[in-house]
């Protein structure tokens, strides 16, 4: 195995990911109870209510978490729920702007400032989270474009988290889901659903088990499951065949690697004996 050129692995991975993108296989997507939990929580929000949408990621994790934003906002706008979006990551606001415009304005005909708003980015991480629990307009006095929030109809009657039906957090790390649970859910007892990168998901499942999160979307698979629930075929669904075959290839590599490892250790023992 020592002389094995690892570039063969890269070529195989590239092929097993590329081929299903060119010729989709249509493998089934099974929806997990964690994703159903997030869907049901949004279903319970009465139309006309406001949801706080925490968009905590940047372009580095776009392929994984951006489809979650598309899917959850599709669900929120389809139910006539107002969306107050904000970011704790500096690279987040343009991404939030894109998804709000495409889904809210272009698909559902919602109006900026009336049905949704992008409050932009605020530095301060956990401090901002706690501050939002005391005053949302105090923490974000102006939106992404610099318009004072007092001039935006959507912000009428929105003072703190008691005025929002729930929080939907899509995050790619720190600050993200863990901090929203620790600083906001446990302190202000707000209903919290989250979507996160696959790397972070195992760390957050205990929050779902304890009921601190009402639902959890883990990685591209979580996004694809949510797309299935809302009946939207987005990039997550499109990438799931490639994802599944990629996993299969990795499993095969692990099995082959272990077989070769045990064979080489056995032959070494025989040589010594």
């Amino acid at each position, binding site marked *: 195995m020592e002389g094995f050129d690892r570039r063969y692995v*890269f070529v195989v991975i590239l092929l097993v990911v590329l081929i299903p993108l060119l010729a989709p296989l249509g493998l089934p997507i099974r929806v997990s109870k964690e994703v159903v939990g997030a869907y049901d929580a949004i279903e319970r929000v009465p139309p006309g209510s406001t949801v706080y949408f925490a968009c905590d990621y940047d372009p580095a994790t776009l*392929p*994984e978490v951006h489809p979650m934003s598309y899917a959850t906002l599709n669900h929120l706008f389809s139910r006539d729920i107002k969306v107050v979006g904000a970011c704790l990551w500096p690279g987040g606001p343009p991404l939030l702007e894109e998804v709000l415009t495409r889904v809210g304005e272009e698909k559902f005909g919602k109006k900026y400032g009336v049905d949704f708003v992008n409050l*932009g980015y605020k*530095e301060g991480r956990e401090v901002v989270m706690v501050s939002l629990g005391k005053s949302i307009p105090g923490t974000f006095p102006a939106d992404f474009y610099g318009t004072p929030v007092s001039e935006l109809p959507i912000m009428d009657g929105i003072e703190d988290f008691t005025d929002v039906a729930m929080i939907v957090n899509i995050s790619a790390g720190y600050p993200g889901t863990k901090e929203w649970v620790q600083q906001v859910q446990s*302190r202000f007892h707000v209903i919290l659903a989250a979507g996160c990168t696959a790397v972070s998901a195992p760390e957050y499942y*205990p929050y779902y*088990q*304890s009921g601190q999160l009402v639902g959890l979307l883990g*990685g591209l698979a979580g996004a694809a499951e949510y797309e299935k629930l809302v009946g939207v075929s987005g990039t997550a669904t499109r990438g799931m065949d490639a994802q599944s075959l990629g996993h299969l290839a990795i499993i095969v590599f692990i099995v082959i690697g272990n077989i070769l490892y045990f064979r080489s250790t056995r032959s070494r023992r025989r040589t010594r004996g």
Partner: protein
Amino acid sequence: MLPSPFLHTMAALLTIAIFSFLYKDNPVYKFAEHVFVGIAAGYIVAIEFQNVFLPNLWKPLLAGDYKLVVPFLLGVLMFSRFTVRFNWLSRWAIGLMVGTFSGLAIIGFAQGDLVAQIQANMLPLKAGSLIDTFTNWVVIIGVLATLVYFFFSKEHKGALGASAKLGIWFLMVSFGASYGFTVMARISLLVGRLLFLLVDWPASFGIELIH
């Protein structure tokens, strides 16, 4: 604003340049890496200046909110780190930040993790269904065995040793799950880039390569 095909082509070429590292390290990869690091650093500075410094400190200060002089001075003290003689002054500002974030983190951890997770692990040993009962037993035994593994005040021998060994197995399963999720994350990023090269890039020229 530059036309979309130009921007998409630039993004596609930089993506291919980064992928070229998989063949071997090369100047094209190095160029793309340096471009990324430079742009990312510049972007962060611009964003922090426009979205943080100006609206949170500078503009309100000029408008007469003089209590902001305190954070302004603390911010200035951070720059004392560039001088050997006065770099001790930055410790005041750092001390304030460390104190604030530690306080928040401790409260957050105690409320959100410690108490809530202990509560969540107090599960009934006989639940409504057989599968729930089995799951509860696995969770309880897993938590106890893993905690025993991290108990180092007594040698891991006999019953304690057996529990610690079981704890290692539970840890291994959780590491395996984490690794699986990490693989999923990396494949997702590859899928994202390939979709960009196969769908978004040709689409910017009005070409539909795949449906």
